[in-house]
């Protein structure tokens, strides 16, 4: 049994999308954010959620959205959560930073900041995150750089920025930041841009090689499915949804992960029940813990990856029994049939 399959009384970390309000309208936004949703949790309700997560000893909360810094009570909530000793990561587009936010982040051992940037040039980044966003984001990064703030630049790897990964790595280094790359997945607004922005089999192979050559590049979850074995050992090596992590959306609905925010995957609402009740008893969560896609069970790599990313599989095929179409075996096969000299490890 893999460690990630050992039953946990609560998640190790939570992704908490605090608002759907956003000042950008990125074509790949996993939650299709733009305006706040009706019924988003207020400050008191969020504090109650934080109280429960602290009581359950959840170690980390990763805040996203939407743009969390556009939530009126975000900084007070962050202070409240830090008072409980919970480590936080703030995923921001970097354009809404205030002096107060920078001061709160600086020298704070409980904060990590991740700024999203999807290209090393305005042309590439702005084609994804919107006109003029590159310079605004870089100004934000400059406000954070050089301070005592653990900083990373996060890039969702797509067909349009794929050739800029080395430049992005250099750019991150310039600001004393790490580069973190995330898989592009067809959730939220990305369902419309999936075919245009997804990586080809050859690009997936190159990406896996590139990652294999540089262990300093941070990767988001679900890279285990596409990476070489040595790289996989650097992080979670199977889907952690409902096992080690879960997602809370702005209105208090709980999902297996941020990329599975669809009605059929809703585990419950924090307006109606506790997080613990959802974690322990939700039918959706129980089903996810036993998920073994039929298409993968006879695969020689199944014991290694357990079927890849269910979000990609589901939103591409509408079937959780399908394989992650970008898994290492799939892209290796596709690359081979295209005459590739490389083989999967």
């Amino acid at each position, binding site marked *: 049994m893999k460690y990630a399959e050992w*039953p946990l009384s609560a998640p190790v970390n939570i992704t908490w999308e605090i608002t759907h309000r956003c000042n950008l309208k990125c074509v790949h936004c996993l939650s299709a954010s733009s305006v706040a949703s009706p019924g988003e949790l207020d400050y008191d309700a969020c504090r109650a959620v934080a109280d429960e997560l602290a009581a359950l000893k959840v170690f980390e909360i990763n805040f996203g959205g939407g743009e969390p810094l556009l939530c009126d009570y975000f900084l007070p909530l962050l202070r409240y959560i830090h008072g409980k000793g919970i480590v936080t990561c703030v995923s921001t587009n970097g354009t809404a930073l205030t002096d107060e936010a920078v001061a709160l982040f600086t020298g704070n051992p409980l904060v990590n900041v991740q700024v999203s940037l999807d290209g090393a040039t305005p042309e590439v980044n702005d084609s994804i995150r919107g006109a003029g966003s590159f310079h605004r984001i870089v100004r934000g990064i400059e406000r954070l750089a050089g301070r005592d703030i653990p900083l990373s630049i996060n890039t969702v790897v797509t067909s349009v920025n794929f050739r800029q990964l080395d430049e992005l790595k250099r750019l991150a280094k310039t600001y004393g930041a790490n580069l973190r790359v995330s898989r592009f997945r067809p959730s939220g607004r990305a369902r419309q841009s999936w075919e245009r922005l997804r990586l080809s089999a050859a690009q997936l192979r190159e990406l896996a090689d590139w990652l294999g050559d540089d262990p300093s590049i941070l990767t988001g979850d679900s890279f285990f499915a596409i990476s070489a074995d040595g790289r996989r050992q650097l992080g979670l090596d199977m889907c952690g949804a409902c096992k080690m992590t879960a997602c809370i959306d702005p209105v208090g609905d709980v999902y297996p992960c941020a990329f599975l925010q669809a009605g059929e995957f809703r585990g419950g609402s924090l307006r109606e029940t506790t997080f613990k009740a959802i974690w322990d008893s939700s039918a959706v969560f129980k089903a996810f813990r036993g998920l073994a896609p039929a298409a993968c069970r006879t695969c020689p790599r199944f014991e290694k990856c357990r079927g890849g990313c269910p979000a990609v599989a589901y939103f591409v095929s509408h079937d959780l029994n399908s394989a992650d179409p970008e898994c290492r075996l799939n892209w290796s096969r596709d690359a081979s049939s295209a005459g590739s000299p490389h083989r999967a490890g």
Partner: protein
Amino acid sequence: MTCRLAEQVQVRKESWGLLFYNQPRHKVCFVRSGDWLYPRHFDGTWTLPAIAADIAGRTGTPAEIIERSLPKLTDHLTGKGVICHEVR
């Protein structure tokens, strides 16, 4: 000599043992210690003999088994960097 959680490490009890969280590395460490160890044992006040006596009292495990196994377990946790020993 007492046991204490290492700096920037948190721990919680699970049904199978202890789950440690290393904050700077964002890594977790799974330790299958069953019902032997609890987070309180690493608050800096418990010596190994006191932990052993606590385990024996709660679980009924023979003392010789605990005395043989407990140091290996705590050495493992020390090696993982999640606890440290303190001389008081």
